[in-house]
């Protein structure tokens, strides 16, 4: 077993912790025999330990020679020399010039796979930097490989910078550690793209030179060469386009986002050509289908083994080359979607955009790009608009508060201006955080949503105070107008949306047990959606009141405007959707209660907890919110008590009622003009549930004790109930 120290020069930092005396040649005395003898005297199971050290501490020790915990063991058990780049060149096991085309293609493809694996959350040391070439591109003499190595490093560097800046990752998403690797910082971005472009032009000449001419007898060897030149050309071009697109994202102007979109679209066009030429590249010598590290020239999976942290090793399974193109094309699709965000200018639209984007569980790079495109340097939206202005626009759109209306005397009142400006300034941080939360992965979002409710509770309080102050000002100036609960309604609306999302995401993340469904759906339908709808209708009437005043003022000049009464209310779509959601939740609630009556819900034997404990845990984050007030378990039990009805409904009545709710949801959704995919998804659940509930109400399979199944495949939040 020969093992060379793979990293002699660049990990000097690890040695800093050694106490001085250990560096000196201390006198070591062998006590193996005595020690082992003394150990044998101990009783079975007895631990000899220091007073301050016990089993508890011992548990966190890593076990040596256990392949699952001991990262150092793997490197030590390989029967080959682990060489770093310089050593490998010296021993001429790696070429730095005159590489064959298949070698170049194979190396590039493997690098792409490593890049993707890194983006999927593995460490750089175990992915991209297993490629020896990127350790020091200056040593590469082959121009195509050199520019490619630099290009990959730049891509990594920009991606890392974007992800770090956006700060929407957790350890499960991304490893930000660079282990001191040099990311081609001595070369400018422009120089690298220039080098790639030069190589690309050169390759294009080769491609043209080997192209078949009309009437020519095609030599299969020339044809093969042509294919290989083309394969290399496409790979270099792809690298350049991706790099240039990422560079465009680092610019501050919004126009560069459009440019990035064009570039990635061009890159996407090359992907199929790359996919069809994968077989031209050299393959690794070992079987990588199980996700093993490819072993081939230029790659040494163990070169960084000693850089890994002392936690148990995480194996980085490098993705297969066959999957590479599919990943890239999805990534590019996501980046294209991200670029579309600049077309949305109102805050509510942006919030919807972020939450819709997040629903497809995008990768950390695209999530980060979305964040950094939205808030450039955390100051201005898209680099141009002030967050405060966006908030004012959102307020105008949502409740049309008199204070923000040009026609109102408050608009130019100094005091009113101070009130509203300071409120809007206070809003901007929580709203930026809310948008940032939507950039996190789905599981983390829920946790963070629970926490941000505290900030919104503070805003709510302020909104109400500002409303009151503005109202008393307005009463003095224009007694016929009101400024009641305008800002408060708007904050309440966001509060409710966050609370609803918090509860619903629990279904998506499969956090709830079946026996918990009923109180979750109850809370949603009877409480949160009811509040949401009254909030929306209050906003709507506030809008109408404002419009009436504007109309009256306009009336004097022209009578034309009054005919435009039939225009669509801006909030009507949202009100309709809330009604549908509420009916879906109510239907699910009644279904669950009825199933429970029939003994078809498995309830755990509560030993250490009770339903109340679980209930309180589920709704714990809502305790920080003042409006709407949290519903405590006792209140919930009282409010949902069926005995208050005379006669109390049986399971058949409840199934029928549930069926009606689903029916109602279906009716509402079918009347939606221009239905979006979400409408269709809910309909896919509502329709079968109508039928199932009618069957159950008719006593179908009443005696069966088999538990029903809940199929969330059609919709994340509402299941299709299946009786087996």
């Amino acid at each position, binding site marked *: *077993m020969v*093992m060379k*120290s793979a990293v*002699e020069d660049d*990990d*000097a930092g*690890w*040695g800093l*912790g*050694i106490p001085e*005396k*250990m*560096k000196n*040649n*201390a*006198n*070591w*005395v*062998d*006590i*193996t*025999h*005595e*020690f*082992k*003898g*003394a*150990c*044998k*005297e*101990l*009783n*079975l*199971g*007895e*631990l*000899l*330990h*220091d*007073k301050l*050290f*016990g*089993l*508890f*501490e*011992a548990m*966190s*020790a*890593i*076990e*040596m*020679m256990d392949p699952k915990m001991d990262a*150092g*063991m793997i490197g*030590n*058990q390989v029967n080959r020399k682990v060489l770093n780049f310089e050593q490998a060149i010296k021993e001429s096991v790696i070429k730095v010039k005159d590489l064959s085309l298949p070698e170049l293609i194979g190396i590039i493809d493997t690098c792409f796979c490593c890049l993707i694996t890194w983006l999927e959350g593995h460490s750089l040391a175990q992915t991209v930097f297993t490629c020896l070439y990127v350790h020091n591109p200056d040593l590469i003499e082959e121009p195509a490989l050199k520019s490619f190595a630099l290009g990959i490093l730049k891509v990594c560097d920009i991606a890392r910078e974007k992800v770090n800046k956006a700060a929407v990752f957790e350890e499960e998403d991304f490893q930000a550690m660079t282990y001191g690797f040099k990311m081609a910082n001595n070369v400018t971005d422009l120089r690298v793209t220039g080098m790639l472009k030069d190589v690309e032009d050169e390759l294009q000449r080769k491609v043209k030179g080997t192209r078949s001419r009309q009437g020519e007898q095609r030599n299969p060897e020339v044809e093969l060469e042509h294919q290989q030149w083309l394969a290399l050309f496409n790979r270099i071009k792809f690298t350049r386009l991706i790099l240039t697109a990422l560079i465009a994202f680092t610019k501050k102007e919004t126009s560069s986002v459009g440019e990035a979109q064009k570039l990635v679209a061009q890159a996407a066009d090359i992907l199929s050509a790359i996919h069809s030429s994968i077989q031209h590249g050299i393959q690794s010598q070992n079987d990588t289908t199980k996700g093993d590290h490819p072993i081939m020239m230029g790659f040494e999976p163990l070169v960084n083994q*000693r850089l890994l942290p*002392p936690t148990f090793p995480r194996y980085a399974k490098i993705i297969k080359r066959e999957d590479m193109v599919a990943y890239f094309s999805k990534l590019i699709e996501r980046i294209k979607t991200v670029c579309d965000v600049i077309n949305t200018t109102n805050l509510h639209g942006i919030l919807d955009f972020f939450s819709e984007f997040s629903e497809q569980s995008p990768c950390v790079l695209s999530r980060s790009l979305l964040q950094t495109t939205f808030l450039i340097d955390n100051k201005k939206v898209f680099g141009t608009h002030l967050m405060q202005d966006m908030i004012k626009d959102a307020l105008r759109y949502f409740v049309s508060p008199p204070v923000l209306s040009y026609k109102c005397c408050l608009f130019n009142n100094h005091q009113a201006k101070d009130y509203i400006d300071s409120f809007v300034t206070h809003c901007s941080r929580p709203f930026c955080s809310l948008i940032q939360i939507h950039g996190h992965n789905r599981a983390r979002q829920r946790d963070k949503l629970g926490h941000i409710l505290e900030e919104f509770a503070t805003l709510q309080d302020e909104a109400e105070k500002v409303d009151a102050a503005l109202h008393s000002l307005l009463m003095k100036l224009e007694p016929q107008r009101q400024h009641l609960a305008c800002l408060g309604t708007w904050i309440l609306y966001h509060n409710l949306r966050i609370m609803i999302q918090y509860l619903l995401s629990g279904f998506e993340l499969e956090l709830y047990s079946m026996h918990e469904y009923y109180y979750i759906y109850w809370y949603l339908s009877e409480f949160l959606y009811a509040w949401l709808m009254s909030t929306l209708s209050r906003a709507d009437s506030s809008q109408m009141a404002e419009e009436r005043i504007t109309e009256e003022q306009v009336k004097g000049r022209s009578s034309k405007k009054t005919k435009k009464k039939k225009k669509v209310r801006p909030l009507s779509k949202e009100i309709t959707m809330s009604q549908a959601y509420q009916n879906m939740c109510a239907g699910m609630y009644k279904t669950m209660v009825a199933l429970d009556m029939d003994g078809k819900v498995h309830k755990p034997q509560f030993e250490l907890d009770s339903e109340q404990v679980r209930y309180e845990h589920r709704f714990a984050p809502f305790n920080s919110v003042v409006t709407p007030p949290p519903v405590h378990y006792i209140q919930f039990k009282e409010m949902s008590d069926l005995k208050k009805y005379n006669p109390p409904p049986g399971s058949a009545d409840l199934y029928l009622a549930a069926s009606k709710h689903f029916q109602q949801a279906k009716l509402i959704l079918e009347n939606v003009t221009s239905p979006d995919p979400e409408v269709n998804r809910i309909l896919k659940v509502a329709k079968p549930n109508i039928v199932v509930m009618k069957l159950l109400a008719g006593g179908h399979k009443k005696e069966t004790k088999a538990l029903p199944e809940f199929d969330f495949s059609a919709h994340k939040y509402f299941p299709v109930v299946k009786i087996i």
Partner: protein
Amino acid sequence: MATMIEENGPSSHEQPEVSSSSQARLKLEGLLNKNMRIRMTDGRTLVGLFLCTDRDCNVILGSAQEFLKSTDTFSQGEPRVLGLAMIPGHHVVSIEVEADNLEDTQGFVANH
């Protein structure tokens, strides 16, 4: 703290002082928190503070560092910081303690 010690298994102090086993215990206790160098079956060497052992000679070292080759000088290769590490008894090849710490463990060596 008191409960912690109880949880951590029988404390050696409560053992009667006469038997050979209690002598062995005393010896081992004398080594606690001393720098120890353990060579493993795969050729690696760990250096760290001796914290805990048991009948099967499983040893726990604190602030352990891993050296790839057993050498007297550490010139060959830099160590890797491991932290708390447990070496299973059957992988222990040799155990050494630092000499300047040996004065108070003299009894240990002299008694063999």
